[in-house]
């Protein structure tokens, strides 16, 4: 023990060196976009592999709960199919492309929940067709939007990140507002820009509006939890998120086949 202390005293400048050099690299990464993107990509590949192993164990232990959620989702989907079948009746469906959206599965290998700027990492990347700005949903509702992808992993910016913004609407009357997160509980988000004349009640369901090219219309987001009236013309609405990020493992990434076309068209209109 004394030997160790002596060694530390003799070489304490090496510790100072490591400390200062680490600090320099942290500053470098935080403030220079180019170096940052390279570091983050390399880091994502390494940590992704590690986290995937750890998450595999955690996932195994939570199989029971996951199963239950999946069964519930199955039931909901089956009900929906039946309802749609009835609606369609005998009408002939135009065959060809099934829809503008394609869903493919991914698993969350790492997530943060208790920070102001949370991020998720999923185990699908460029090679599997994931790209920036694709939507991500879970069995209980929307999860987030893909931020950046490396070859085999992607970073997702979830609803519970203070930078997250999404256009959503009240399901029953189609009033559109902006979904954001204020950094409090990971189960509660807020909905802004709903005007006073809109009819909002506790328990109303909130779904995606489909105005952005990221999510199709009508995906479940959450339920209204609290409605506050303050000065100004808009309500302050708190939403109980459908997705419980703590129990989230399996997600779907949404690829919108027409996204590029829509983005291009909207960009040309702005000019």
């Amino acid at each position, binding site marked *: 023990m004394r030997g160790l202390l002596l060694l530390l005293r003799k070489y*304490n*400048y090496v510790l*100072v*060196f490591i400390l*200062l*050099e680490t*600090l*320099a*690299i*942290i*500053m*470098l*990464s*935080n*403030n*220079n976009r*180019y*170096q940052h993107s*390279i570091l983050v990509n390399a880091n994502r590949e390494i940590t992704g592999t590690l986290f995937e192993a750890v998450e595999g164990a955690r996932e195994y232990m939570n199989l029971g709960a996951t199963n239950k959620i999946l069964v519930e989702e199955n039931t909901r989907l089956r009900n929906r199919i039946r309802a749609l079948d009835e609606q369609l009746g005998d009408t002939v469906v135009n065959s060809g492309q099934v829809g503008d959206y394609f869903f493919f599965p991914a698993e969350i290998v790492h997530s943060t929940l208790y920070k102001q700027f949370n991020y998720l990492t999923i185990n699908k990347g460029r090679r599997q067709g994931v790209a920036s700005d694709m939507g991500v949903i879970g069995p209980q509702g929307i999860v987030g939007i893909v931020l950046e992808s490396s070859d085999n992993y992607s970073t997702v910016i979830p609803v519970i990140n203070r930078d997250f913004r999404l256009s959503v609407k009240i399901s029953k009357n189609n009033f559109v507002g902006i979904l954001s997160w204020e950094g409090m509980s990971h189960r509660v988000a807020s909905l802004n820009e709903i005007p006073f004349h809109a009819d909002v009640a506790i328990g109303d369901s909130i779904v995606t509006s489909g105005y952005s090219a990221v999510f199709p219309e009508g995906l479940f987001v959450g339920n209204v939890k609290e409605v506050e009236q303050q000065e100004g013309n808009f309500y302050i609405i708190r939403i109980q998120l459908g997705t419980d990020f703590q129990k989230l493992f399996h997600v779907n990434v949404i690829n919108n086949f027409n996204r590029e076309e829509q983005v291009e068209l909207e960009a040309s209109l702005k000019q």
Partner: protein
Amino acid sequence: MIRLLARNIIRFIILILVQVLLLDNVLLGGYLNPYFYVLFILLMPFETPRWLLLVAGFLLGLSIDLFTNTLGMHTAAAVLMAFMRPWVLSMFAPRDGYEPETYPRIHYYGFGWFAGYAAILTFMHHLVLFYVEVFHFQYFFTTLLRVILSTALTTSTIILSQFFIFRK
């Protein structure tokens, strides 16, 4: 002691100002930029404790970074340079060591000694700086050429300054 400290602090400030106000606007042949400010680390007294060297290098690099908006780049390079200085000094040490009351300058240890000492440390600094700036090894030799040319330029500026300004 106080006088030594004051001299170093004034030198620190002057070198940073010269670097960011004057030399950063000088670009020779497209990408040659002398980083004269490393002279501060070269001129610190022999007895400076290693941790102080590192902290001084850190502050020096950080100050330059703040002006050039490249936070971290010069800091990483200057800290590494400060870390290597004691080894380079012992590598170049005369047979009976460095005498007290002397400083690492041409005046005390001669032209050859100072040129070697300055060139090696400047090279290390530039090596880190330029590779961190490019941040991959794709253009390895182009970057290496830039390192070598800039080292030559910085070192000759430093040596010239020894004859004109920092004589003692």
